[in-house]
C-alpha cells in the first residue's frame, strides 16, 4: 500500500500550521516524522487520520484520490492512528478492548466472549505476544498497552499505522519490546509513521526520516546516512549541543543528607547527601522508586523509617507545605497531571507556591507578584502573550518553564526536578539545561530525575542509579556512561575498581 499526501495546506485562523507539505509512506517501511512541538507533525497526521480536513492539497491511496472527512473514513482506508494518550479502557479486559466499538455478537445479540478471546489469542500468536487476553488492561505496563493498541490496529487490517510518541513514557526495556513489535509489523508489510523526540531511537528503528519545521518540510532521506546531530539540526535549524555541560564546580556546604530512608515496599535503605551547587542525576527503569523517594522527601508520600537532615539539622517532613518552608522544591513529572492547573492563568500558575509571600492576611497583592514574575519571565525566556492568558495556550516547553518559575519564586535550597524535559522540544530542552546550570551556580543543590541516560550524562556531576527501590550504584566522571547506567539499572553491580559485574 502507498499513501501519498500532496501539497497539504492547513491553517487555524491566522496560524499557518502546514504550508504546502508533501509526504509519502508505503507498506513495509518505518518512517520517522520529526519536528519540534508546533512544527505541524500532529496536524499532518490528524489530516491523514481524518480528524482535520486540509484546506488544500490531496491524499491518495494506491494512486486513487481519497477524501477523509471523519476518522472512520481513514480507518476504512487501512490507516490506524495510535494516539499518544492511548485509547484503552482500563477497567475492561484486553479482549474486550481489542473489539471496542465492533464487538462480536452471538445470534441472540449478546456478546460473543469466547469468540473475541479466541481471535485475540490468534492475533497475539501471530504477533509473538505473550499475553493472556483475559487480563485487565489496568494491570498492564505502558509498553504492553502500546502493544495491545498495535494488535488492535492489526485486527482492523491496518496497512499504515501512525504512532504518536509511543515511547515517551516507556523505559528502555519496554521500548525495546515495542521496537521488536514494529520490526515484526514491517516484515508483514505494514507501513509505520513513527513520531518521536528521541533521535537515537529514530536511528535504531526507522528506515527513512522526514523533518518538519514551522509547517514546511525541511529535510528527508534515509536514516543510515545521518547522525542524531544532523536530525536535531534539521529540527531546530541550527546546531544543537550534545557535549557534556559539566563545568567548573564550586561545591558548597552539604544541603541534604538522607540516612536509611525506607517506605514500605516502594524504596528501602536509601542514603545519600548533596551539597550546594551540585547537580545529581537519579535514574533507573520503571519501578525503580525514584519518583516515590523524592516525593517522600518532599512530604507528598509517607516515610516509614529513616532520617532526613537539612543543613545538618534533622527534620521530619509531614506535608508539602512544610517542605516548601524548609526550602525544598519539587517539579513533578507528567506536567499535565501534576504540574499545571488549567483553570488558573499563566501568572497564577507561576505564583501558586508563593501566594502566601505576596499576600497580607490572605489578600493577594497582585502588583508585587507581577513584578517578580516579569523578572522571571525574562530570565527564563518564557514566550507568551499576556500573563493573564490561559496556561494551556503555551507550548509544552514554555509551560514547563512556568512550572519551573513557580518553584524558583520560592527560593529553594534543594530543587528536585522530575523528568524536567519530558515532552519538551529540542530548543526548549537546551534552555532548561541552561537554567539548571545557572541555578547550580547560584548554590542551589539540584536533583535531576530522568529516564534518559543521555540527559544525566550531559548535565549531572554525579549519577545515582536505582533498581527496585534501592540505590544500585553511584558514579561520576568517566564512569558515567550509558553502558554503566544501563547495567546498574537492570540490576548489575559496580565493583570497587569501578568495573561492573552483571
Amino acid at each position, binding site marked *: 500500500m502507498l499513501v501519498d499526501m500532496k501539497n497539504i495546506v492547513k491553517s487555524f485562523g491566522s496560524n499557518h500550521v502546514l504550508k504546502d507539505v508533501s509526504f509519502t509512506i508505503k507498506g513495509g517501511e518505518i518512517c520517522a516524522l520529526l519536528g519540534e512541538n508546533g512544527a505541524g507533525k500532529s496536524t499532518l497526521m490528524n489530516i491523514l487520520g481524518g480528524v482535520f480536513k486540509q484546506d488544500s492539497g490531496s491524499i491518495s491511496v494506491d494512486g486513487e484520490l481519497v477524501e477523509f472527512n471523519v476518522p472512520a473514513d481513514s480507518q476504512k482506508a487501512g490507516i490506524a492512528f495510535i494516539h499518544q494518550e492511548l485509547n484503552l479502557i482500563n477497567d475492561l479486559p484486553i479482549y474486550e478492548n481489542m473489539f471496542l466499538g465492533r464487538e462480536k455478537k452471538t445470534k441472540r445479540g449478546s456478546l460473543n466472549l469466547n469468540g473475541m478471546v479466541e481471535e485475540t489469542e490468534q492475533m497475539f500468536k501471530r504477533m509473538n505476544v505473550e499475553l493472556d487476553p483475559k487480563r485487565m488492561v489496568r494491570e498492564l505496563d505502558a509498553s504492553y498497552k502500546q502493544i495491545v493498541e498495535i494488535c488492535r490496529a492489526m485486527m482492523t487490517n491496518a496497512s499504515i499505522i501512525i504512532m504518536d510518541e509511543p515511547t515517551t513514557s516507556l523505559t528502555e526495556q519496554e521500548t525495546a519490546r515495542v521496537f521488536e513489535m514494529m520490526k515484526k509489523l514491517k516484515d508483514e508489510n505494514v507501513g509505520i509513521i513513527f513520531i518521536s523526540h528521541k533521535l537515537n531511537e529514530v536511528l535504531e528503528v526507522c528506515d527513512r526520516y522526514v523533518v518538519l519545521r514551522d509547517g514546511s518540510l525541511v529535510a528527508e532521506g534515509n536514516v543510515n546516512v545521518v547522525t542524531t546531530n544532523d536530525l536535531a539540526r534539521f529540527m531546530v535549524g541550527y546546531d544543537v549541543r550534545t557535549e557534556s555541560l559539566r563545568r567548573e564546580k564550586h561545591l558548597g556546604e552539604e544541603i541534604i543528607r538522607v540516612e536509611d530512608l525506607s517506605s514500605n515496599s516502594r524504596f528501602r535503605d536509601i542514603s545519600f547527601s548533596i551539597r550546594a551547587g551540585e547537580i545529581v542525576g537519579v535514574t533507573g527503569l520503571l519501578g525503580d522508586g525514584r519518583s516515590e523517594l523524592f*516525593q517522600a522527601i518532599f512530604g507528598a508520600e509517607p516515610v516509614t523509617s529513616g532520617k532526613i537532615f537539612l543543613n545538618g539539622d534533622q527534620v521530619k517532613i509531614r506535608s*508539602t*507545605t512544610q517542605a516548601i518552608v524548609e526550602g525544598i522544591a519539587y517539579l513533578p513529572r507528567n506536567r499535565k497531571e*501534576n504540574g499545571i*492547573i488549567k*483553570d*488558573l492563568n499563566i501568572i497564577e500558575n507561576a505564583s*501558586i507556591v508563593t501566594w502566601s509571600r505576596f*499576600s497580607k492576611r490572605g489578600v*493577594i497583592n497582585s502588583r508585587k507578584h507581577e513584578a517578580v514574575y516579569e523578572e522571571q519571565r525574562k530570565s527564563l525566556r518564557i514566550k507568551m502573550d499576556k500573563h493573564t492568558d490561559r496556561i494551556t495556550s503555551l507550548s509544552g516547553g514554555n509551560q514547563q518553564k512556568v512550572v519551573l518559575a513557580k518553584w524558583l519564586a520560592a527560593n529553594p535550597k534543594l530543587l528536585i526536578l522530575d523528568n524536567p524535559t519530558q515532552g519538551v522540544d529540542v530548543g526548549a530542552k537546551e534552555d532548561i539545561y541552561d537554567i539548571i546550570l545557572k541555578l547550580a551556580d547560584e548554590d542551589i543543590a539540584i536533583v535531576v530525575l530522568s529516564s534518559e541516560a543521555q540527559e544525566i550524562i550531559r548535565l549531572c556531576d554525579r549519577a545515582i542509579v536505582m533498581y527496585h527501590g534501592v540505590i544500585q550504584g553511584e558514579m561520576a566522571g568517566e564512569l558515567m556512561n550509558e553502558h554503566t547506567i544501563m547495567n546498574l539499572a537492570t540490576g548489575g553491580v559496580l565493583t570497587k575498581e569501578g568495573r561492573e559485574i552483571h
Partner: protein
Amino acid sequence: MKFLTWFKTKWKNEPLFSTAIALIIMIILQTFVLGFDYDSFGSWFESWTNNWINILRNNAGIGIIALGMTFVIMTGGIDLAVGSTLVATGAFTMILLDTGTKGILGMLGMTGIPAFILTIIIVLILGYLLGALIGVTITKGNVPPFIVTLGAMLIFRSVTQHFMQGYNPKVPMEFLEIASFRFGNYMIMPIIYWAVIAYILYYVSKRTTFGRQIIAVGSNERAAKLSGVNVNKVKLRVYALMGLLVSIAAIIQVSRVGSMDFSNAGRGMEMDAIAAAVVGGTSMAGGRGFILGTVYGMLIIAVMNNLLNLFGVPPFLREAFKGLIVIGAVLLQRKEKTS
C-alpha cells in the same frame, strides 16, 4: 458592524457575558409583562420596585446558600446537606430564643438584644461546626462528598425532627426585626445581607489566596498538593463556610416568619442552590466557577418564577421550566468553552 464584532468577542471570551445577557432579556420581558398601565411614572416605578424587592427578598436565603455552594462545587465537591443544616440551625435558633418555659436563654435569664446577639453567635458557630464536621469526614475519612452530605442530610433533619416533635418554640417579636426591619416602606434587610455576603465572597474568590486555592484544588488536586497547597484544609474550610452561610440563611428565615416547618423547610434547597451555580457558569467538574455568575443564575431563576406567576402557568409545570433553564444555560456555555 463594530457592535456585532464586539458582541461576538465578548460572547466568546467573557464567561459571564451570555448569562448577563440572558438576565437582562428576562428583566426586560418581565418589565413588559408587568405593563405600563399606571397613572404616573411614580406609581409605575413603585410597583416595579416592589415587585423586585419581593423577588430579591424571597430569594435572599437560598441566594446566600448558592454562593457557598459555588465554592463547594468549585473544589469538585457537592453539598446535599444544606437543607437539613438549615433546619437544624433554624431549630437551634428557636430553642435558644423561645419565650416559653423551655427557652434556653430565657431560663438563664437573658432577654432582649444581648440574648439575640448571643443566639446569633452560637448559631453561626453551630453552622460552622456542622459544615466542618462534613468537611473532616470528607478529607480525613476520604469519603466522597456526595456520600457524606447525603448521609448528613438524612441525619441532621431526622435528629432535628425527633427533638422538635410536639415542641413549638415562640420567637420574640423583636427578633423578627433582623429580617423585617423597614426602611420607609421597604423591607430589604435580607437583600442587604445577601448583597454584602456576595460582595465579600466575590472579593475572596478574586483576590485572596483562599479563592485561588479553591480553583487549584478543584482543577487539579494532585498538582495543587505538589505545589504545597494544603488540599484538606482548603476543602475543610469550604464546607465549614458552607455551614456558616446556611446558618445565616436559617437566622434570616426564622426572623422573617418567626417559625419553621422542620419536616419541609429547606427540602430541595440543595438542588436550587446547585441550579443557580450551574446556570451561573460553575462547572460540576470543579475548577471553574463564578460568584457573580451564581448571583445572576439565582436572579434568572427567580425572575423566571415571577414571570411564570404573572403568566399564570400552572404551579406543577413551573419546575419543568426551571429544568429547561438549567439545561439551556449549560448548552449556551458549552460553545464558549470550545474555542
